[in-house]
């Protein structure tokens, strides 16, 4: 049985690998701060989700417990926030990552947009 830290590290490696492959920027881990409050998050994607970027946080079954603190700071700082399921993304392939990025939307410079945006059409 893997512990929490091991799982987070594995997922971090997975995201870093996909960031390199799909050519997008990711900062992991990331400390989110607002009004003297700060909380460590799984990652920050500066060019997705909103013009201020987005925060990634991890949830685990069966409870899928989300952090109100992260949601609140994101709301106050104009960042988008997504709680991703560890079990889904630890096993996801390139296509799944591309679909996820497309769903979040790209808000960076057009010339730097990952090429996968031209490859897939999101069904959902």
């Amino acid at each position: 049985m893997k512990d929490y830290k091991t799982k987070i590290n594995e997922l971090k490696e997975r995201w870093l690998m996909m960031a390199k492959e799909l050519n997008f920027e990711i900062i992991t881990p990331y400390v989110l701060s607002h009004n003297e409050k700060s909380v460590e998050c799984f990652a920050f994607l500066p060019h997705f989700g909103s013009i201020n970027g987005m925060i990634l946080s991890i949830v685990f079954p069966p409870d899928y417990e989300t952090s109100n603190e992260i949601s609140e700071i994101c709301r106050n700082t104009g960042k988008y926030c997504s709680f991703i399921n560890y079990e889904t993304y630890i096993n996801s392939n390139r296509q799944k990552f591309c679909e996820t990025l497309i769903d979040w939307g790209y808000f960076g410079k057009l010339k730097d947009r990952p090429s996968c945006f031209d490859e897939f059409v999101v069904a959902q």
Partner: protein
Amino acid sequence: MAIETNPEFSVGTATPIPVPGYVFIYVNNNSSSSTPVYFDDLKVTQLHSPYVAGGDFYPFGLAMDDRQIKVEPYRFGYQGQYAEKDSLANWNAFQLRMYEPRFGRWLTVDPYGQFDSPYIAMGNNPASYTDPDGGIILPEVTITAARGVSMWVISVANAVAVSLQIGLARAGGFANGFNVGMGVNSSLVSLVDPNTQAHSAQYAEAQAAGLEFGQAFPQLMMMRVTGETMTPGTSPMFATPRGPVTRPMGIPITTLLDVHGRVYSDNPENTQWGWTGSKTWKDLVQKVKGGGTITDLNGKIPTKTEAIKLIEEGGGKVDRIEAGHADPNPHQYNHINYTTNTGIKGTIKIQGL
């Protein structure tokens, strides 16, 4: 190690539940030994009650709270037409007059002027008389010591097996509790005379269903029957999860009855749509299983927990839990992205993260 059970209940045999309320079931290791004890395969089965409608009334017809079974709608009750509510005043509408059971008084004057006071009901003596339409009172010939009235309606499927319990449970019934199945007037169903009374259609319906009738008592209630087939003893309605069970479970019996006693779920939870495991819940699971964008389920927005349960019961997997997207993404509300067991993508709107 000895296994102790509550003497009122027993393991492996059916335990009658005489009153509506809650069932608390638990397994507890009271042994002083340090050896771990494992409980496995604890199963609790509730057999379907044959009654689909019924209730207890005070002598003047006021329905007793928490002593009503309303699995199926049934318009006839106290004295035959009671329980038909006027849509505007919410009063009890009889054929000729409105009736107020809390006071035991009619709300308009007696068209026949039978008593000095034109408002008194059943001649102020509901134990001896009935007044089924608000007109002339009729003598209650069979009951002389009634303190309350109970009425029960059971399914046709069970009618043969428990025919002696069909009909009306009367005097003494409510004094001893809910009295499921108790019927003083237990010979056969007694109904109004089909040739002279207004209930001939219902009489024909009951007769066609194979019920026999005894002497016609106009004061007795009309019996409604249902064609639904239920098999007593083979319809489990609740089972605990397999494995050690130590948590108590509280299940309101009346809630279970409301869903026809067919709740069958490994881990039942009460939701906005009733208990998980009910037909409504299973229909929602099927809907979620279809994927696509779901903004409400039967007009209600699920909580995060409800949505996850629906997704997982359908074999799907949660991908992400998110707040509303920015334009142009259409999902500009709290939602869960998921993938069904067949690989279809879906999004469910949820109340909050």
